[in-house]
């Protein structure tokens, strides 16, 4: 991670020196991850593309103000997140304003782990169908929870970096992460408990 940070700093110095090609290196490096993050937040393809362009344009124009206190990736994801949240607040305010949609029920907060899910091999969980189910399980979450699980478990940011990107406390990050992970877990448990048969398992092992 540190060498990545050093490499980004070197490229940023070149960009600030007037080398636009160097900026394209940063775009090349981060466009897939930013696209994924925006896609999971906003869903609508055209809006995602507009926000992707806006994010990199904002980054280019704001690069002089980048202090290096955080990593470039944290700074860039913060810009993308703010752009997406601004869009959502304007177009779908109800999707962002309520952060308590996932209060855990008092009586049965944890679905037991089904043996089917625990026994399902990664080849099935990460097959085309399995990946589609993972995406669906994440998409069922409210946006703030969706962002949290994607930034932590998909992008690998630390909790502190997440707090910075999402402009909230580490405690809020932990709480959302806990709920989001358990909701995805329950969704996957329910899916595999319903569908997996021994024949599926054998097929999955051949994939």
């Amino acid at each position, binding site marked *: 991670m540190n060498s990545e940070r050093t490499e980004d700093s070197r490229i940023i110095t070149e960009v600030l020196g007037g080398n636009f090609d160097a900026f394209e290196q940063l775009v090349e490096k981060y466009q897939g991850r930013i696209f994924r993050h925006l896609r999971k937040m906003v869903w609508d393809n055209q809006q995602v593309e507009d926000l992707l362009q806006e994010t990199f344009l904002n980054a280019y*124009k704001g690069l002089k103000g980048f202090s290096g206190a955080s990593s470039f990736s944290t700074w860039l994801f913060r810009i993308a997140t703010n752009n997406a949240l601004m869009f959502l607040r304007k177009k779908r305010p109800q999707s962002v304003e309520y952060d308590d949609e996932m209060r855990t029920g008092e009586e049965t907060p944890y679905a037991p782990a089904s043996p089917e899910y625990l026994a399902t091999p990664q080849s099935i969980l990460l097959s085309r169908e399995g990946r589609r189910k993972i995406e669906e399980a994440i998409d069922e979450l409210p946006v703030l929870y969706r962002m949290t699980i994607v930034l932590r478990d998909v992008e690998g940011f630390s909790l502190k970096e997440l707090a910075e990107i999402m402009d909230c406390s580490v405690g809020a990050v932990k709480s959302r992460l806990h709920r989001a*992970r358990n909701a995805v877990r329950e969704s996957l448990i329910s899916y595999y408990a319903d569908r997996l048969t021994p024949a599926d398992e054998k097929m999955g092992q051949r994939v």
Partner: protein
Amino acid sequence: MNVCQHFCDQLSDYLDGETRDDECRLIEEHLKECPPCEEIFRSLQKTVVICGKGVSDEIPDSVRQRLRAFLREHCGKD
């Protein structure tokens, strides 16, 4: 099958290395003794691992090309 709420509430933090040493020890001891909680833990761990691998960062070529053209057009002007 009952799980122990207090321990399960800490499992996400535990996976992130966010629990204190004494809490870690208690959780680890509990997981050894309590099969339902141990299964919850394994299913949570499995979920975190497959989420990390299961969401593609593929970006369509057309989107990539339009981004490049957009930035070339807008970044040279200031």
